[in-house]
């Protein structure tokens, strides 16, 4: 079953995931897709900031940080599932 990237940060399982969908159609969602969070892209949770938010993800060879509120827009499932 799909979860969002924000839930993954809670589970902190470090597994490779695949983006199922970026929900919403506004400028914010478009920007997330432009920086590489698009359907089919592999993504991995790396760590949370010392205060719990935001969190760091590995995406297309780079380290990117998103807040929980943005990570909630990104639905993911296990890679290859």
């Amino acid at each position, binding site marked *: 079953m799909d979860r969002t990237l924000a839930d993954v940060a809670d589970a902190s399982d470090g597994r490779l995931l695949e983006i199922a969908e970026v929900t919403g159609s*506004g*400028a*914010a969602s*478009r*920007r*997330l*897709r*432009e*920086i*590489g969070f*698009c*359907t*089919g*892209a592999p993504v991995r949770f*790396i*760590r949370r*900031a*010392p*205060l*719990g*938010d*935001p969190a*760091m993800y*590995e*995406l*297309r*060879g*780079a*380290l*990117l*940080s*998103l*807040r929980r*509120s*943005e990570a909630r827009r990104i639905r993911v499932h296990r890679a290859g599932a």
Partner: protein
Amino acid sequence: MTTLVRLRPTAPARRPGRIAILGAPNSGKTTLFNALTGHRAKAGNYPGVTVDRREGDLQRRFGADDVRLIDLPGVYSLQPQSEDETVAVRVLEGGFGEPAPDGVVVVVDATTIERGLPLLAEAAALGLPVCVALTMIDELKARRGEIDPAELQQELGVPVVGVVGNRGLGIDDLGALVSAPWDWAGSSSLSRGAEAKAPEDRFAWGRSVLAACRRQAPEPNRWTRRLDRFLLHPVIGSAVFLTFVAFFFQAIFTWATPAMDFLSGLMDGLADQILAALPDTAVTRLLADGVIRGVGAVIVFLPQIVLLFTVILFLEACGYMARAAFVVDRVMGWVGLEGRCFIALLSSYACAVPGIMATRTIPSPRDRLTTILVAPFATCSARLPVYLLLIAAFIPADPVLGPFTWQGLTLMGLYFLGTGVALLSAAVFKRGLLRGASLPFYLELPPYRLPRPSDIALGVWDRAKLFLRRAGTIILAVSVVLWFLLNLPRRPADPELSVAENQRLVLEGSYAASAGRLLEPVFAPMDFDWRINVGLVASQAAREVMVATLAQIYAQEGQDEEGLGVLLSGSGEGGSAPLLSRASALALLVYFAFAMQCMSTLAVIRRETGGWRWPAFTFVYMNGLAWLSAWLTFVLASAAGA
């Protein structure tokens, strides 16, 4: 390294005149630009917007004269959402009253090439000739990744040059490339990328290009992972962050001070020498006290600006600045700002001028403006002399608890007051005036890298120059105007009286004194008399001028600052009446904590926001808040019997 085959020659070939350099933040764009121009950039602003403009001429040794390079702001995409992106797109499309560039060098970080190719597709879609500079290929190899620029060139149909900006490898190839006529149309593959509309399609295109090139993706950067485990650890990471803040404060308050004292001493000495050497006329005094001391008021900021930006640019280039923003983002999020605003606010404790200049790293225009508007509340070093004078005179030195005295606690309280009001105002602005849909927060955490000293030096030099040129001229003008206000109309010196007495008489009859008397009804509720008001008028040049002006206005033989405090509080042995009640003194302290009394800050706000609207707003709201709070303090303190 790369054979520069002429692909698809088309006639007639144009000689390039202007070449734009486009790339994502952290792609190595600036290092490349500096290497191509030989570290000679002209910094400025695009008209009507606050984005930095950097241009420079290609070094002659590459074979062509008059090739102008334009360093575009770092962008991830050409779908404009932020101001940086809007500017990049406008330049590429031929905006700002200039023709479109003759070609675009797209800078792509080889270690994250998958993220860079979509930008190339977008640039190609504009129809301009493009070529690719593939940076960080040494890092790619070190992490066992592989890509052959020649293969990529074959696939894309445009020249691809592998460069290592830090060691100058490939720079000659790239220089020769941008010197030569541009006539590359690109392959059918590149046009497929250019036709892609959705971001997904551009990324998919990029992956297909890389698949055709037998590219080997790099392994994760071990050093960065290892350092992050330590620097972002919940406990150790927080400790490192707090150490970083303490280090920053230390740099501001102790390391810059000797240079600042030296410069202000130098300018004071120069002014004194002029006064001694030239006949005592109004022109001499204007030159010494107005111009020379005015210039002094400007350059005294330089050591702090240079030091702060050296630290900021160094930490930015080595990768820790993004981590600091990552660590503190949650706290800043409580007041509606984000991690990157923190650095600017922190710098403002030295001086709001470099703090406001440091807001350029904040991508969201609303967050940036909010930070600019609240930064002047931070307790800058110019407030300290006034605080120290008033606290020493009016607050008892009695111990409260352990090593703490009322004086120490008051000073600490004033720091907390400034910080609290800054954060509170930010929250108010973000919920009211500057509310609106914002860009999603995202922050790229670049790998840790050793910065190139010349890039940092150049960045610091750019900012110092901008400060001197834009803010400096206004500060100087204001200093001269204030000198006139404090010294006119002229009055013949009375030989019977001492120099100090004569100066006091000139000041008492000056236009500034008239202004002080005019302001009496405004400040009467706090019981400030006209002499305090003159100090407030004079402190518009710079807050610390308050102390010198009060000393001048209460001038007596052998008067020093300690004596001034005694005189103000009436605590002298002669039992003279206090010139200021304790309630008024507290009100004055609060007034200084909140008021916008700094022309340099207003000048920088004007420069950074591109007009007088926001500096005028800052002036009104801060001074309004200062008056209200001072009045409230006076009422409460009077009621408490202070």
